[in-house]
């Protein structure tokens, strides 16, 4: 398995493990109705973000130790093509979600619901990017 595919798998699992519980807990939570400063919600988000950072750091160290040095050098043209396609798809996902959050949610909800939805949009777009990277390596690019 290519080094960058391993990293994408790692990131994909990290997103699910760290941000999944965060959104499961905060979705429809009374925390979203608290005024500023909403330390309860912010603490949960900080825990998810720090958890994801630690996961990524430790995971990369492990993947690097198990991957030969010459296979984790600079990205070659296939790595770049896979990343380009994944980023393009994720970009359109992010644009779609951002338009929804910015143009629809202000008329249907308020405050932290909108903030949390924007955070979710970024997380979803990143998750789609990692998933597309994995798919790019698995199914190939022609």
């Amino acid at each position, binding site marked *: 398995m290519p080094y960058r595919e391993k990293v994408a798998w790692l990131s994909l699992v990290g997103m699910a493990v760290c941000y999944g519980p965060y959104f499961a807990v905060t979705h429809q939570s009374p925390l979203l109705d608290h005024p500023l400063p909403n330390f309860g919600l912010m603490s949960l988000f900080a825990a998810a973000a720090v958890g994801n950072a630690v996961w990524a750091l430790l995971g990369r160290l492990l993947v690097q130790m198990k991957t030969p040095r*010459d296979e984790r050098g600079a990205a*070659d*043209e*296939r790595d770049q093509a896979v990343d380009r396609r994944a980023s393009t798809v994720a970009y359109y996902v992010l644009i779609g979600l951002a338009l929804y959050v910015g143009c629809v949610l202000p008329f249907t909800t308020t405050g932290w619901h909108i903030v949390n939805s924007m955070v979710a949009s970024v997380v979803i777009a990143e998750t789609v990017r990692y998933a597309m990277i994995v798919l790019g390596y698995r*199914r*190939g*690019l*022609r």
Partner: protein
Amino acid sequence: MTGGRIENQIRTLRFLQGEMSQEELGRAIGVTRQTIAAIEAGKYSPSLEAAFRIAGVFGKPLDEVFQWKTGEKGTAPGTRG
């Protein structure tokens, strides 16, 4: 022009080069072993530059290493009357 795919003879040419490894070929043209494996398996179409480099390693013209295959038997887009 649509509906075709690129086929290649890299596996055969590696064999004829004294069983050159994917890693050696990858190193010679500046890509990873996995990328050579993906090219051989038809899961990735290399850039024109990489294709020329691969052909150069084997000392062959490009069309002896890569062929464009359409659905029609024995035809390539550039060869139709």
